[in-house]
């Protein structure tokens, strides 16, 4: 009975700590809703803390390919993400074109992109620290120029 209690306590504390860490790091959120035709609805919520960790489990050849395709842009992404972290609350771009709407801002240390047009809405929210981590990781796989 005592052993079970210890295991439960250990498990509970681990879950609580992991939950607290995940909550602190934030969540990557992607919502895509299509209301036209057989509209698709994609909702992805991923704890930001696991993204850099998960990248270590991606097969090396896939990371090399990603690095080859996107690596050259990563230093720029890294600088933008790093600098934007200094502006946790900022309205960056807002475009209204009739019924189309795009809004890019930082809120609470996250980059938030909202795009709306008739029949489709896209909302993306990603912690800037995660973008910074991922860009650094991908840049390390870029072919040497």
């Amino acid at each position, binding site marked *: 009975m*005592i052993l079970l*209690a*210890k295991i439960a*306590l250990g498990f509970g*504390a681990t879950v*609580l*700590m992991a*939950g*607290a*860490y995940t*909550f*602190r790091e*934030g969540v990557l959120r992607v919502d895509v809703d299509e209301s036209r035709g057989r509209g698709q609805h994609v909702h992805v919520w991923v704890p930001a803390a696991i993204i850099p960790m998960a990248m270590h489990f991606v097969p090396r050849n896939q990371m090399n390919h990603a690095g080859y395709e996107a690596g*050259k842009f990563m*230093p*720029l992404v890294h*600088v*933008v993400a790093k*600098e*934007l972290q*200094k*502006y*946790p*609350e*900022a*309205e*960056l*771009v*807002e*475009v*209204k*074109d*009739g019924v189309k709407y795009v809004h890019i801002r930082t809120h*609470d*240390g996250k980059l938030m992109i909202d795009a709306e047009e008739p029949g489709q809405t896209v909302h993306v929210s990603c912690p800037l620290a995660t973008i910074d981590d991922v860009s650094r990781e991908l840049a390390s796989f870029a072919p040497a120029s």
Partner: protein
Amino acid sequence: MVNRTRKLFPAIAFLAASALFAPLHTSAQTSSTASDTSAHGERWLHVRVISSNSKGETVRVNVPLDLAEKVIPAIDHDRLHNGKVRIGCMDCDGVDVRTLFEAVRSAKDGEYVTVQSEDADIKVSKKDGQMYVHVHDKKKSKDSRVEVKMPMKVVEALLSGSKDELDLAAGLHALASQGDVELVSVKDDENTIRVWLDSKNVTD
């Protein structure tokens, strides 16, 4: 062992609760500090385009100059490298832009170009270290006006690179040292365009 477990439980619970509430505390701090006026010393470049056509197009862009200053040198694409953009026609139609600018810079304040015609009035002048360009287009149904105010130090910084390039990074750096200033203002029957610099992180 049971006692030890019992003693550890409050400590673990406290640690977990502290970690759980840490971001909320940070978030609250962040929210309370966010306001119209940005932190001391921050300079923001704003662009606003408002169209009065049926669609009512609106564009609002707010860029921290500090961010732009650091991001531009990181762009390595086409004609833009190391914060400098290559301009092929700095010697435009036989006019050496750099020499022309040097002449304006070293000259005294005054009006340099004044054109008055049925189609448009154009005026280029210099006053208190600022270069002004004023264009009044009379051809359109409603008067169209373009006002450009460019600090000479910024133009000087832009032209500080080699002969066929503009040093954008240096230009932004020089711009950051300027006070609140409206750089470009365009008004015509359809659009209102403003580009200005201040220390606020929102447009209106």
